[in-house]
């Protein structure tokens, strides 16, 4: 019988071709818009997370339990072999890098700036954040000399380049003052505009020398196979290493997480309004359809079709229309998303500066996530099912004689 109802529903929706096409195209339009919007949003944020997480913080970090609130080098620790083994044995952890993260004043011959001074093991760090690939001028860190790397925007601010010398001033371990003069071995360009303005890398042993904290580190940055396993791994390691503080990237960068959620809410409001408008259109066609087919529904009920089945046919009709609409929407938006996924759009001019100030890379990245397409189809289906309640309710109460007396 379901085949009979499907056949009826399918043919019914083509009774008024023009109306069905208008409804389908309005749904299609909404789906295309929603897919593009979500694709750019997800793409931008994925990129932003990638820039900050994969290219800098790591998905999960291990710190001394006081370091997060008080980033003093006094809140540092020595990575023992038990903890190391736990990290090595976890399959999800691809690799990890030990660091000293601190702040300092950087002075060139011309200017002084505050900056993040990061001591890293050059090879380990390259393995988890591909730091070497970021190099645009000069050469990479080398444990054997005392050259440092500067973010390109920071170098510009200080009016220095490779082979120039800078001075780092800061506070060392247990109140000692730290100062050192270092040649710039290279300039790096990080995708995150914010980091690019304030970062200095130096070999870990050099940083330990500078700050007087032999063997001590502030941070272990972990690279995971899947970034969305962050919270899971956080929980596992928290249980395994109770003496240290394990943080996932959302905890490390709460601002970024907040930004993503705010943006989500904005999209929901915008699309909510869009879908509401389209719902009115669909509802109008449902009302017209109910009115036009009143007599026919009466006949069907009279000759033996149950009210519930009448309702089922009409619900099927609505579902079919929204499926066609969202399918067309997907067919239309998929190639567009695919194209821009492969060829991201670079923004130039003033707008680019606005994006950079907001902490975004000025590039429109399009995410190619099946989720986006599936979710929009589900949203449209849900809307059409909700809108079907009205005719379904009507048909459940339909009286054959009253229905035919029109």
């Amino acid at each position, binding site marked *: *019988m379901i085949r*009979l109802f499907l056949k*009826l529903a399918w*043919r*019914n929706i083509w*009774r008024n071709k023009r109306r069905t096409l208008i409804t389908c195209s309005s749904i299609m339009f909404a789906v295309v818009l929603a897919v593009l919007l979500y694709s750019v949003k997800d793409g931008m944020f994925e990129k932003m997370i990638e820039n900050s997480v994969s290219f800098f913080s790591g998905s999960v970090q291990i710190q001394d339990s006081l370091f997060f609130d008080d980033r003093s080098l006094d809140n540092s620790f020595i990575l023992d072999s038990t903890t190391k083994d736990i990290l090595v044995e976890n399959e999800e952890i691809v690799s990890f890098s030990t660091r000293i993260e601190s702040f300092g004043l950087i002075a060139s011959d011309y200017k002084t700036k505050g900056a993040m001074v990061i001591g890293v093991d050059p090879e380990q760090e390259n393995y988890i954040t591909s730091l070497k690939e970021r190099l645009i001028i000069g050469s990479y860190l080398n444990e054997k000399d005392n050259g440092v790397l500067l973010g390109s925007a920071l170098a510009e601010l200080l009016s220095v380049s490779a082979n120039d010398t800078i001075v780092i001033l800061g506070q060392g371990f247990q109140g000692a003052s730290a100062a050192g003069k270092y040649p710039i071995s290279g300039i790096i360009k990080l995708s995150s505009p914010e980091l690019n303005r304030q970062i200095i890398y130096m070999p870990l042993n050099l940083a330990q020398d500078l700050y007087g904290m032999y063997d001590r580190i502030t941070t272990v940055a972990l690279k995971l196979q899947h970034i969305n396993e962050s919270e899971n791994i956080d929980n596992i390691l928290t249980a395994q290493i109770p003496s240290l503080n394990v943080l996932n990237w959302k905890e490390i960068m709460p601002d970024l997480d907040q930004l993503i959620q705010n943006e989500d809410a904005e999209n929901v409001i915008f699309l909510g309004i869009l879908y509401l408008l389209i719902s009115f259109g669909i509802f109008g066609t449902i009302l017209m359809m109910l009115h036009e087919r009143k*007599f*026919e529904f009466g*006949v*069907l*009920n*009279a*000759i*033996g*079709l*149950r*009210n*519930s089945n009448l309702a089922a046919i009409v619900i099927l009709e609505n579902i079919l229309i929204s499926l066609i609409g969202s399918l067309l929407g997907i067919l239309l938006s998929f190639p567009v998303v695919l194209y821009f996924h492969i060829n991201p759009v670079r923004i130039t001019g003033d707008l680019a500066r606005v994006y950079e100030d907001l902490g975004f890379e000025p590039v429109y990245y399009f995410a190619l996530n099946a989720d986006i397409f599936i979710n929009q189809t589900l949203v449209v289906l849900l809307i059409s099912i909700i809108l079907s309640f009205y005719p379904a309710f009507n048909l459940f109460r339909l*009286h*054959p*004689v009253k229905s*035919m007396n029109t």
Partner: protein
Amino acid sequence: MNSKTITRPVIRTKSLTKIYNGKGIPVKAIDNVDLEIKKGEFTALVGPSGSGKTTLLNMIGGLDQPTSGQVFIDEQDIYKLNNNEIIDFRLNNIGFVFQHFNLLPVLTAKENVEFVMLLQKKSKNERNKIVEWLFEEVGLTEKLNVRPNKLSGGQQQRVAVARAIASRPQFVLADEPTANLDSQSAADLLDLMTKLNKEENMTFIFSTHDQRVIDRARRIITLVDGKIYSDILQNTIKAY
């Protein structure tokens, strides 16, 4: 009362009454009607417009709840059934032919006739056999796969009769089935119903205004103001 099984009533109404409360003034559309229809009858329901023909047919057909009184079909008090039961009862026991727009425009003639049998969950084999036989009977074998809008009014009504019969009901109710037909089509439709009545012993009850149609009936029940005014058997038709 004759208690022989062949003549037992298929329809029996008891003090059947329908009162409409249209615009404040109650209208007794059907007033205390006691009526019996036996298997194989060919009955015309006549009377002036507004005399209650449609109301009576609807109540007999399980389409409209009486204000008081009962309708028994095969001794089943049909208004004791719940909504789904009465719909299924209509599906399996009663064939309907309305004045117009009987057929689903999106289905072909064949599919329209098959529709009720699909609801009855009859097998494909059985459906095909009945379809073949019925289209032969109504003389539309070549219109099997044509949609209703490609059929004349008379052809549509013949398909409607085929659909009414397809479920193998106890009887067929037809409310002014010829009202929208020219006289030739009306005569053809009556020929068809007469033939099915004779050959298949199918019980028909139809309302009509048309004297030529009335002449073809065996039993003529005349309604006036919701009451049975006269109930006669016609000898000329008796010859059949």
